[in-house]
Each structure stands twice: as structure tokens, then as C-alpha cells.
């Protein structure tokens, strides 16, 4: 609830913040404009409209030999599977940790916080070697498994938080009505945490969609490439840098993110804000 009074003037702040936001806005603006125009060197004003920067959609470019549609499909498969896996496992594990009598419950809960502290880099070396031995190197399955595992502690923690807020009385009433704990969970508790499920699903989808390091190390090949790796490969090749092309790829890459963001903005702000507690 904003406080507005004669005492405080908002205008100078708005101007200052607008100035600070300017670089970000310029970047976003040109991200869109540059994908459909050509601009002569030395100026910022485009002089012709063209669709050649989107050529990566129908042909392979000099920067990458992977097929963009294959890569896009991979990215969707990777993100959706990862998100569902995280959700499914967090749903059960979060409930067990929040509500059920299990041995070593405290230990598991503190373990969860600890796992949160393990950075990707500490695992990825060993995982790289494990996947190579298992023959899962350079396959989508491998990255999906690893990404799900890495995001799992966070997912479980979030779901536990949502379960914690379900009134105990609802479960007690269910038990009194003769339902088993499983039925209570499925029929009475799950409907109460639906907003949480939605938020976690969207959140996991977005993190998977944005993930770079794991697929870069574990699945760099053309067959299992995802969009982040596709774009990063272009970006890394500084000898033939073509910003218009890369921006087109980037815009293509970010469209699902923007759509999801617009639909779920409020929910996401909540999980990014509140979810990181712990």
C-alpha cells in the first residue's frame, strides 16, 4: 500500500529510476528491433526491414549445425519432463516431511537445507564421469535426471512450506471420517496445495528452460542440444559474431519464458520471493 502525501514527492524518484532503467529498456527494445531490421555500422537507426535474421528457422547457419526445430523440441522435452519429475517427487516427499511420522525427520530436513548449499560445480564433475560410465552422456535423459535431482531440494522445501500451511484440522477431520492417510492426502490435502503445485511447476519449467551449464557439459551434441546451448555456442564464437542473428535466436528462445511470465507473474514473484526462505 503506497503512502502518498504532500510530505513525499514521487516525481524525482520516478525520473531517477527511469534513468537507471534506461539501459535495460534499450537492451530489450533493440532485442526486438534488431531481429527484423538491418542497421548500418556507426548508427542506431535501422534502415531496412528484413527477415534474413530468422533464417536459422529454415536452414542451418554458419554458427551452428544443429537443427533448430530439433533443438526446440529437445528444450521442451527437457523442461517439461524435468518440471513434472520435480513436482511429482516434491509432492510426496514434501508431504512426508511436513506431516508424517518418519524416522530421522529432523535429519532429513536439515539435510535438505545442506543440499541446497551444494553448488552445481561440486557435483557436475562426478556426474559427468558417472553419466559417461552409464552411457548416458550426451543424452537428454541424463540431463533431465541431473537437473531434476539438483532442483529437488528446493522443490521439496517449497512444497513442504505449502503443506505446512494446510490446517491440521482438515486432516484430522478426514481421518475421523474414516479415510486413510493416503486418501486424506489425495482427496483433501492436494486440492489445498494446488496453487503451490502450479507455482512449483512453472518455476521448475523456467529454471530448466534457462539452464545452461548442465546441458553444456552433459549433452552438448547436436542430437541432444537445447536452446541455451545452441545460443551459447553462437555467443562463444567471437570470430563471426552476428548480433542480429543471435538476437533473433534469443528472442525465439525467450518467447515461452515471456508468455509464462505474463500469465503467472504474481505467482512467480511469490515463489521467487518467499520460496527462497531456507
Amino acid at each position, binding site marked *: 500500500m503506497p503512502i502518498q502525501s504532500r510530505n513525499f514527492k514521487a516525481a524525482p524518484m520516478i525520473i531517477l529510476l527511469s534513468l537507471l532503467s534506461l539501459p535495460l529498456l534499450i537492451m530489450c527494445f533493440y532485442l526486438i528491433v534488431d531481429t527484423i531490421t538491418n542497421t548500418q555500422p556507426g548508427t542506431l537507426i535501422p534502415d531496412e526491414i528484413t527477415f534474413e535474421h530468422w533464417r536459422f528457422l529454415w536452414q542451418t547457419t554458419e554458427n551452428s549445425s544443429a537443427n533448430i526445430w530439433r533443438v526446440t523440441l529437445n528444450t521442451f522435452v527437457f523442461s517439461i519432463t524435468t518440471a513434472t519429475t520435480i513436482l511429482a517427487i516434491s509432492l510426496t516427499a514434501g508431504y512426508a516431511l511436513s506431516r508424517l511420522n518418519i524416522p530421522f525427520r529432523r535429519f532429513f530436513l536439515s539435510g535438505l537445507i545442506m543440499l541446497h548449499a551444494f553448488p552445481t560445480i561440486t557435483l557436475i564433475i562426478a556426474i559427468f564421469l558417472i553419466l559417461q560410465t552409464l552411457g548416458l552422456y550426451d543424452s537428454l535423459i541424463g540431463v533431465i535426471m541431473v537437473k531434476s535431482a539438483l532442483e529437488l531440494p528446493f522443490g521439496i522445501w517449497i512444497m513442504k512450506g505449502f503443506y505446512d500451511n494446510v*490446517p491440521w*484440522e*482438515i486432516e*484430522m*477431520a*478426514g*481421518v*475421523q*471420517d*474414516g*479415510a*486413510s492417510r493416503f*486418501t486424506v492426502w489425495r*482427496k*483433501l490435502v492436494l*486440492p*489445498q496445495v494446488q496453487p503451490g503445485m502450479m507455482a512449483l511447476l512453472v518455476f521448475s519449467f523456467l529454471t530448466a528452460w534457462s539452464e545452461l551449464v548442465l546441458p553444456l557439459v552433459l549433452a552438448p551434441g547436436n542430437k541432444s542440444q537445447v536452446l541455451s546451448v545452441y545460443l551459447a555456442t553462437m555467443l562463444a564464437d567471437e570470430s563471426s559474431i552476428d548480433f542480429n542473428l543471435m538476437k533473433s535466436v534469443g528472442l525465439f528462445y525467450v518467447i515461452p519464458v515471456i508468455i509464462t511470465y505474463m500469465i503467472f507473474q504474481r505467482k512467480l514473484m511469490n515463489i521467487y520471493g518467499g520460496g527462497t526462505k531456507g
Partner: protein
Amino acid sequence: MKIELRNFTKRFDGQAVVDNVSLTIESGEMIALLGPSGCGKSTSLFSICGIHRMDEGQLLFGDKDVTNLPSQKRNVGVVFQNYALYPHMSIFENIAFPLVVQKADRATIRRKVADIAELVQISDLLERKPANISGGQQQRTALARALIRRPDVLLLDEPLANLDAKLRLEMRSEIRRIQSETGITAILVTHDQVEAMSICDRIALMQKGKVVQLDKPREMYANPANMFVAEFLGNPPIRFMPAELHENQMIAGGAALPRPQHLKQSNLPDKINLGIRPEHFGPQFGNEISGHILAIETQGRENLYDVALSDGGVLCSIQPANDHLNPGDTIQWGIASQHLLAFDGQGERI
């Protein structure tokens, strides 16, 4: 069904919250678990319905020992303080849930829900969601859900606490009506003595995890076992004042009074506490005690007077409303000595 609790003890983190309680509730009886906040009422209730495990003791439903049965197998109906209706289900689905869990067929479910909805008078609300009905209606729904399985026992945890004053009166008699119509054995948890006295057959008064007295409401009011019970029952509450017993008289409230009939035995201690209820102090009982009026509270039909006695004690009197007296006035009133309650130094009844 008769319910029997034998030597029940419940501990949290090693601390006894309910301590060696025994209680028998006759079939068809409605009993109140009454006591101040934190005395262990809910804990007892939860142990009876199986949510808590009992650390010691036994629980019998009829002749059957249910101590180690899980909630699902006990056939107990519970109404929770905040009703715990399932927010995502309609009223119909809420009431039907216990039957759905039992996998009853549709026709039976529809018939039984209709019957019970009629009993609790919510037949026209069945399509709505819990959020869209009033507190009293939620209460009725919770009752219906608790009763639909025809439980052996009905447990109510402060069922009226969330209602406004008028609705509380209405639901109070409704609960009693439904209980006697179904003839179910019921336990009502409450910290409101009026509620307990008005609708229950007997009251179990709890203090710090123990049942201090178990009796019919009138009996408990007239013959409290100790000062705690005497003070807990009755509104406005009983007042106490110290008294000295002498050969033939008794010094109390700065006055010498004749020693009452029921305090004539010679084995009594010299110093006792007297408990005087407001209805037993007033001009109609004599004029031995003098004092001045501290405050007057008008309740419509009656007036309440706080009277400061000459020795500094304060008594309360309740009398039919009138305008004769003002704060500060001095009075000469008496007490109904046959109703005096006497307690020893430990607060136990003499």
C-alpha cells in the same frame, strides 16, 4: 454407547498434560469437559478420537478396548472448533465424504445425506461451498458430517466459540436437540461454564490435567469441591473472604456473625475462607454487614453491586434493578448464612 477412560495419562516432551484421569460416560449422556485454557481438554478429546496416542491408561467403548485402534476404526464423530470443512467440496460432498470413503453406493449416500441435512436443517444449502455459508450453517454442516456415519460417540471441541452471541444461544439448543434426537453419547469441550451448565447432563471440570470434580451442573454449583470449582462456576463469580471461627460466632467482613448451622462441628480450623455468591448477599438477608458501594453495573433486569466492606474485602450482590442506590452510598446488608460455602486453608471444601 458407554465410554470409559481409565487412568489416562498423556505427556508432551515428558511433561504430563493430562494426568491419570478416569472418567465414565453413560450411554446417551452428554458430558462437558470444562476448564480454563490449557488444562488439557482438547488433548483428552484428541486422545479419545485417536489422533493422539495415550501414554498410559485404557479407553473402552462399551466393552471394547479401543486404546490401540487408529482413528479410522473407532467410529467417532468429531466437530472441530473451526469446523474443518473441506473448502474445495460442496456442502453435499462434505457431508457425504465419510460415506464415500466407505464406498457406499450413490443412492444410499443421497438418501442419508438428505436425511441428516434435514435433521440439522441445511437441506437447501447442499450445492454451496463452505465459504459461501454463514458460521451457524457451517456449524450445522460439521455436525451433519460428524453424524452421518452414525458414530458411537460425538465429540465437540468448543463448537460454539466462533459464533456470535445470539447464534451461540441458538446453536446451543440445536446441539442439545440433535443429540437427544439421535440419542448419541456426546462429549462437549468448552471453557464456557454457561454452555456446559445449560446443555450437558454432567460436567467434568478439569484443572491442570486433572478432573477435579464430576457432577450434575446444579449439584456442582451448589456443592463445589474446592475454591477453584466454586469460582469457575457462576457469573458473576463467587467472592471469597477470610473468616475466624469462635465458640458461637464468626468474625468476617468486619462484622460478628452467628455461626451458621452447617459450620457448627467442633473439628473445624479457626481460620477459614468463606465463599459468598452474589445472590446470597443483600438487604433481604439482614443488616449485620456494613460497607459502601464501589460500583453499580446495570444488566437490565438486575443490578450488580460491588460492595467494599469495612475490613477491606469486597463482596458482590445481585438484586432486581432499582434506582435507590448510588456509588459511594453506605449500606447495611446481610448474607444467607445457610448458603455460605466454607473452605480450608488449602482451598478444599469443608
